[in-house]
């Protein structure tokens, strides 16, 4: 069996896949989350509570249900999945990209919530000041709003990343448990626990999970401290 350091090939694959899935899902869902957070924080329109509810649905639904809905819509015979396959030649079901989509959907409400809170905390009078100095709406957002909500964006990224690392139910339902393709750390741990000889590898992956999550959390705290200090005028 191939080994990478202390890890077996399967464990190493699971670790790298988990990182890839969690990072890709957090980064690609970020712009959409910012847009949705701006709309929810700043605009009122008919059906807003419905949109708000839909965004938060993955938080309350059993993850298996979310995964099954993804399978129904984005699977190869799903409404959108079929179209993606036929027109664009894109297949995400049973691929690592599907795992990323599942983890993005599961992390989305957390990300939107964190960003929305920071947008609601922005002093709109600063945006008014910016517009009287000649900035149009896009420039106001880029030069004032965005820098001020950076701590919230960071928090959202980390929350979504951590959620992606831990995602299990929606992933296994939507893209199954294929070693090297969709088998992330939680799925690998699950597989090992089903095997009589899996105790040690499961424990190794468990330790890695704990270390990764803790590191992400500490990095996030550190960065947000730096950002807050910069806003308050001290150097970190």
């Amino acid at each position: 069996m191939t080994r990478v350091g202390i890890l077996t090939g399967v464990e190493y694959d699971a670790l790298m896949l988990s990182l890839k899935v969690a990072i890709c899902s957090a980064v690609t869902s970020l712009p959409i989350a910012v847009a949705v957070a701006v709309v929810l924080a700043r605009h009122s329109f008919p059906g807003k509570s419905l949109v708000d509810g839909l965004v938060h649905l993955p938080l309350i639904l059993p993850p298996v249900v979310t995964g099954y809905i993804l399978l129904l819509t984005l699977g190869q015979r799903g409404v959108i999945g079929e179209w993606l396959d036929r027109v664009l030649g894109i297949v995400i079901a049973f691929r690592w990209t599907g795992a990323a989509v599942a983890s993005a959907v599961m992390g989305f409400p957390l990300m939107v919530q964190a960003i929305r809170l920071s947008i609601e905390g922005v002093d709109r009078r600063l945006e008014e000041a910016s517009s009287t100095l000649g900035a149009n709406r896009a420039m106001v957002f880029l030069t004032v709003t965005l820098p001020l909500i950076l701590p919230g964006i960071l928090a959202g990224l980390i929350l979504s990343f951590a959620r992606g690392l831990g995602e299990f139910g929606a992933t296994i339902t939507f893209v199954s448990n294929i070693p090297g393709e969709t088998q992330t750390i939680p799925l690998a741990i699950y597989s090992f626990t089903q095997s009589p000889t899996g105790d040690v590898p499961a424990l190794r992956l468990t330790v890695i999970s704990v270390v990764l999550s803790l590191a992400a959390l500490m990095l996030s705290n550190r960065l947000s401290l730096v950002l807050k200090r910069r806003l308050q005028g001290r150097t970190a």
Partner: protein
Amino acid sequence: MILDVDITCRLGAFTVDAQFTGAGGVTALFGHSGAGKSSLVNMIGGLLRPDRGHITLDGRALFDSKHHIHLPPNRRRISYVFQDARLFPHLSVRNNLLYGRWFTPAGERWAQFAPIVELLGIGDLLQRRPSTLSGGEKQRVAIGRALLASPRLLLMDEPLASLDADRKAEILPYIERLRDELKLPIVYVSHALDEVIRLAGTLVLLESGRVVAAGPVADVMRRLDVRRLTGQDHPRTVIDTRIEDHDTRFGLTRLTFDGGVLQVPYLALPVGTAVRVAIRDRDIGLAVTRPQGVSLINILPGTVVDIADTADESEAHADVLVQIGRWQLVARISRLSAHDLDLAPGKPVFALFKAMALDAESLGRAPGPETMAAL
């Protein structure tokens, strides 16, 4: 610069319905809190959209309900100094100052960085973060930031209201320099009459969302019918004078105006400087013949224009409006004296006031001759 405002705007149960024209220098919007001053200035700046009417600056429509024009703030070229500085916390002082400059077309940048920084005395603050500045420093940086956007008009919404007396005294001379050295037209919102008298050429009085009086400061200040607004603390009238000479032997300065000569405590300003004198009503006495053997050295002949007798038996005073040259002063005397002297419109009188009553608080540099000429 001609700013023409004629707007109506309903804000809940409150309606702002205002018409006025500002021409160069400082146009002060004065009134009690809740009079609609800030709403009005927000409409000029484009932060609030009126329901009806028009706002034009030098003939260019900023808002016109008939033609569906409502320029967003960023296209008005009007800078705004807010009461609460509103500096960007994520930018250094330097980048705050340069912020508006980025958005100003190169051909329209009249404000240069170095002279403005010099003018406001903020050269030592450039590397600092806004949160480390004192209130007065913040407000000076906010003024610099507004200027460096090279505005056609500067709006100042109670820029001194959140500062203590020392900080106010620190900022006021800088605002005078904008007026006199940069010749920048300013709309200045205030509920402090001292600032208005010191800075403004034109005074617009607001009450409950309506303009109750507008015109040159001296003209509005002498109007007895709006004294309920201009008479706070100690009612006073305003005369613009020029330093004629100094009497070093007795520590006096002689000021001339077209109604005569005023002698006031020594002013450390060069001969020829324009000085605005604000005289409290209660410091003026009246005589029907030229008094002899009194200590009062300011005795100016004039004519009674109007008397506001309260006719309220419990009130002791009567306000008498007296014409002296081109200027009019209000003397607050006892109703008994007004009765005994048989004062009536058209009667010649002498206005008397003590030189020592004209303390530093009532004397300030008047808007420069250019500014006054533009009015």
